[in-house]
């Protein structure tokens, strides 16, 4: 329902500002222009999204994703101390993280939900590992943000991928900030 509110507020504010500013004629035209630019955008980035999705499928079928998932199991026990004691939780977690890393949103979310359910146990409140999982998933760590690179390519960027190092550094800073905040808050935020 949140999107219903956001969209309605956007168009209502446009109406009010259009009337006050005398820009209402332009507002009507802009609605149609915006719709048109969505088609241009989809045509511009559609091919790249498809291609990248194809590469991801090759990674999945050849066992590369499974390899990364196995590789991540050990380091993840440091972040999720209780996961090892809960059967299946560590597998779901490492699949979630490796799928996110490779940009496989369709595989990451079900694995993340499975991990969340397994980590939760019987409680109705979020334990520390569950909060860590949410922080990891809200601060995306992604090797190649394919969609946004496709937008840059469609807009005529000289090198659509020259933002990659900056994306990695930003992601790492953002995840680190989230994890540190979680670490600090867990001491004062008892359940």
């Amino acid at each position, binding site marked *: 329902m949140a999107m219903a509110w*956001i969209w309605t507020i956007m168009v209502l504010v446009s109406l009010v500002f259009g009337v006050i500013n005398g820009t209402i004629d332009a507002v009507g035209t802009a609605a149609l222009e915006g719709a048109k630019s969505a088609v241009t955008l989809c045509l511009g980035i559609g091919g790249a999204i498809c291609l990248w999705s194809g590469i991801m499928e090759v990674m999945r079928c050849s066992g590369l994703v499974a390899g990364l998932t196995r590789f991540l199991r050990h380091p993840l026990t440091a972040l999720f101390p209780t996961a090892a004691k809960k059967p299946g939780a560590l597998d779901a977690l490492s699949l979630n993280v490796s799928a996110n890393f490779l940009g496989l949103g369709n595989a990451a979310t079900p694995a993340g939900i499975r991990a969340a359910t397994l980590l939760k146990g019987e409680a109705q409140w*979020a334990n520390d590992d569950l909060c860590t999982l*949410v922080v990891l998933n809200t601060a*995306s760590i992604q090797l190649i943000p394919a969609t*946004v690179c496709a937008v840059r390519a469609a807009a005529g960027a000289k090198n659509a991928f020259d933002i990659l190092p900056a994306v990695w550094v*930003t992601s790492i800073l953002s995840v680190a900030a989230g994890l540190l905040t979680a670490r600090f808050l867990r001491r004062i935020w008892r359940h």
Partner: protein
Amino acid sequence: MSFGIIVPLIIAGTAAVALMRKTDVYSSLTSGIGDGLRVVLRIFPALVALLSAYAMLRASGALDALTHALSPVFAFLGVPPEMAGLVLIRPLSGSGALAVGSDLINTHGPDSMIGRASAIMLGSTETTFYTIAVYFGAAKIKRTRYAIPAALTAEFIGIVAACAITKLLFY
């Protein structure tokens, strides 16, 4: 930049490793491309809806008013005020952020400061509130404790760092 090798290396490396492991590379590739088409079709309705509403906001002058009102805060954080709309929609809607971000990238140019900072922000942050709702909703968590403040800190640092690093690396 020598980083240009990364993507070709990933594509060729994936294909070579997959072939060595006796995967039918080409049929996996084309079947994945078909899945990609479904992804595009799934985001298309949201992009039409949100780009229309966003274009209306901009044409009405409301976006300028918002940019103007928030510019002292944004200037303090080192974030260009033109990115106000993107910063506000980023934690709420993934398609909305893609719509607003691609508009900024197209308007200011992909190699401009704002275009680059928007792209880096889109690539390194997530739809925080949506993700929290999905995970805690599925796990039937009632008390989320510190998850929301911690996730929003990550988002905030991601936004500020995206702009700082863009300036540092490119300008």
